[in-house]
């Protein structure tokens, strides 16, 4: 166990509120009657369903996939019948509806038969492992849900360090801490598979120092051989130490250059939950059909960590944890700092649902009116990206998006530290998201209009060329005609010319003879 070697700018000391959900071991949620599987779960292309209403599916059966590389398939989390493929509300900041596969479970929770397992994964090639991981539908379980097989393909980059993110810096969330306490061996196995895939020299597991039990469990689990290349590193409890860029800085003192990726500095970073999913997929042959999540907040009586099937409606899980409907003020998916509000409790949990936070009135506080920015600079003090949030806000509000980019808007990780400390209660992150969306849309429009312009230009070009060709043809025709005419007169012309030539030659000859005589 070692301490962090780097530090990042700013950050916040937050009350962690984790103990309440860590009283008991992780429990499996009861099987719901209906599972709702969105076809758009994560960053990447939407999936095409491979089943139709009325079909029977087994647990773990592939039900939707896509040809796109940037995608991960989904599987039936339990056995049952497809009842519909229709629009349902999905967990998304916009609260929008998307196509979902709806499964009526039959209660048997039945696998199709023997699963393909690879207990001796050591003999598999990196490509084979990546294929297994993609087919298991694994995405980053820590937050954004980026398809894992892509991150596991460093291409020509040499990977020096593989980082396992066990920092879990958001308040309230404790599922990674519980997993590290309860399933350290699976985490290490997953880590070793990932290491084999990216061919990393060393592995670092970063954990915040407020999780001594998790640190102990993982340290005790390592054997002597593993200790050679796996190190557990405690990082100070300071939000957002679990941000990818911040954790890389803490553990390696490297900074990921702006607009580049960790692989560019020889680092690959995965979440501890993802490592377990990888181990389950390769060693046990279980695709990603369930995940562990924290159900907590003032509005639930029995906060806990639950292993839930993907697609389970949120209400089902909240009820299991003793939701008090009257107390519920706001339901958040994710943590209080970066999570987003869920408007309907019928929304299903998905691969990236790491926490359901049912906040009561005391936790949300009274709604606050935003006042003008007084330029106090508190936001700049805490910004982990070392931006000037007040300037970003100023330009975003003025809709001067070029200026926001000059102030490095896209280096903002939306951690919310700035809004948290702002004495004027300005929803700063909201403005940054708005500006980012606007800029990306503008860019997309530009590309589109560029394309349209290209098409237009091409058409002009074609017309122009046609005109030229026509003219050319006309010209040639004219020439031909002229030539014919010329040919007729040519004989006469040449006679005259020949006569003239003769005269000239004669003159020249006489002059030359005169000159030679003179000399």
């Amino acid at each position, binding site marked *: 166990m070692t301490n962090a070697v780097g530090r990042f700018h700013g950050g916040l000391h937050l009350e962690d509120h984790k103990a309440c959900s860590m009283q008991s071991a992780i429990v499996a949620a009861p099987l719901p009657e209906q599972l709702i599987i969105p076809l758009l779960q994560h960053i990447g292309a939407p999936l095409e369903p491979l089943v139709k209403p009325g079909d029977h599916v087994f647990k773990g059966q592939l039900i939707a996939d896509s040809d796109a590389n940037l995608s991960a398939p989904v599987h039936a989390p339990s056995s049952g019948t497809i009842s519909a493929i229709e629009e349902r509300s999905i967990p998304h900041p916009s609260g929008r509806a998307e196509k979902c596969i709806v499964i009526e479970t039959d209660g048997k929770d039945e696998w199709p038969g023997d699963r393909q397992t690879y207990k001796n994964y050591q003999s598999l090639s990196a490509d084979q492992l990546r294929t297994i991981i993609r087919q298991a539908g694994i995405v980053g379980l820590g937050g954004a849900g980026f398809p894992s097989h892509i991150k596991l393909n460093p291409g020509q980059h040499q990977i020096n360090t593989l980082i396992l993110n066990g920092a879990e810096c958001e308040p309230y969330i404790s599922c990674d801490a519980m997993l590290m306490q309860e399933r350290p061996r699976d985490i290490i196995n997953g880590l070793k598979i990932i290491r084999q895939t990216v061919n990393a020299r060393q592995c670092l597991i970063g954990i915040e120092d407020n999780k001594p039990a998790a640190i102990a469990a993982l340290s005790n689990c390592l054997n002597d051989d593993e200790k050679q290349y796996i190190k557990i590193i405690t990082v100070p409890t300071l939000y957002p130490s679990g941000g990818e860029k911040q954790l890389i800085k803490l553990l390696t003192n490297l900074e990921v250059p702006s607009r580049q990726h960790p692989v560019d500095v020889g680092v690959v970073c995965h979440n501890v939950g993802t490592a377990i999913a990888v181990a389950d997929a390769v060693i046990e042959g279980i695709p990603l059909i369930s995940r562990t999540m924290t159900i907590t907040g003032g509005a639930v009586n029995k906060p806990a960590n639950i292993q839930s099937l993907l697609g389970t409606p949120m209400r089902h899980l909240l009820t299991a944890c003793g939701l008090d409907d009257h107390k519920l003020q706001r339901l958040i998916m994710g943590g209080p700092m970066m999570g987003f509000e869920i408007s309907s409790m019928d929304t299903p949990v998905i691969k990236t649902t790491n926490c359901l936070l049912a906040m009561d009135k005391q936790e*949300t506080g009274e709604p606050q009116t935003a006042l003008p920015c007084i330029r106090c600079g508190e936001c*700049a003090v805490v910004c982990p990206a070392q931006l000037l949030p007040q300037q970003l806000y100023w330009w975003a509000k003025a809709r001067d998006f070029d200026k926001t980019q000059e102030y490095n808007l896209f280096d903002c990780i939306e951690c919310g530290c700035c809004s948290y400390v702002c004495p004027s209660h300005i929803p700063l992150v909201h403005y940054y998201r708005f500006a980012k969306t606007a800029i990306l849309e503008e860019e997309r429009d530009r590309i589109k209009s560029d394309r349209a312009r290209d098409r237009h230009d091409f058409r002009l070009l074609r017309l122009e060329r046609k005109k030229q060709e026509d003219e050319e043809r006309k010209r040639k025709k004219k020439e031909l005609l002229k030539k014919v005419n010329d040919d007729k007169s040519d004989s006469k012309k040449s006679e005259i010319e020949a006569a003239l030539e003769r005269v000239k030659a004669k003159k020249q000859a006489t002059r030359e003879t005169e000159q030679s005589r003179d000399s």
Partner: protein
Amino acid sequence: MIASSPHQHPDNSITSVMLTVIVALIPGIITHVWFFGPGLLINMCIAIVAGLATEAAILYLRKHPVKVALYDGSALVTAILFALTLPSLAPWWIPFIGIVFAMIFAKHLYGGLGQNPFNPAMVGYAMLLISFPQEMTRWLSPEIPAAVSLGLIDTLRHSFMGVLPTGINYDALSMATPLDAMKVQIGLGQTVATIQQSQAGMSQLSGIGWEWINIMFLLGGAWLIFRKIISFHIPAAMLAGLVLISGLFFLVSPDSYASPLFHLFAGATMLGAFFIATDPVTASTTPRGRIIYGLCIGILIYVIRAWGGYPDAIAFAVLIMNMAVPLIDYYTQPRVYGHNRSS
């Protein structure tokens, strides 16, 4: 609207920031009243009432929510700071005109809270000093005999009716401030040491009363830094700038230039360092920028005190540096994560 992250907030607000600032001013205010009589309180009341009324009226005309803005406490702090710069024997219309001018021209014509480039309290003060130099330099003497000192009633009568109790005139009551006396006497060819020994109202550090007022504002300011209401950058840099340049001249010629200690504890130095130069709206916001901003104010204060036309210089130094803030901020942006130091 769907609530945007983050979903939890600490219990902070502009109001609480402003109230803490006012609390930090109290020791200095009490000391001020102790030495210079209740005139300050009268000026302060006039400034607060007129300032808040002006703010409310303008917000109403601009069709902005009046209540929210009044409760944020910023106008209150401006009025109090402004009153602290006035001599205690000022007639009522001095604080009145000053604060109304400051609120309208220095704050709201620029768009209100957060938008004004110039410190409103200092704009008010500077305008008064230029327009009414006589009234603005009529400071009470801190050591007048009890027989001629003015009580609350007398001060009120003076403020509103312009009459002094019979048998008392301005000459008996008022006295040049230490900074003023120092400047005038040095100009007459006296050495600093003689001035400090012979001139009335001078004391060990700077001047009677003034040294204590400065010490109290220093303590209040330190408490604000401790409470993380202000950052140390500006006050530390400003005081360092003042000490550096005054120390330099003092070393060269201790007879014709007052010591750094004198400058630190005379006039409005500490009030300026901790409460005026730190006004977030008009100061630089980057850490390096704040140090440059503070240093320059410190140096400018000395330059104006030593060679300028006015005895004290906080207001002009701050206003001049307010103008430079956009430039300073632009060139002192911190290095963003993932960017090269050079870019």
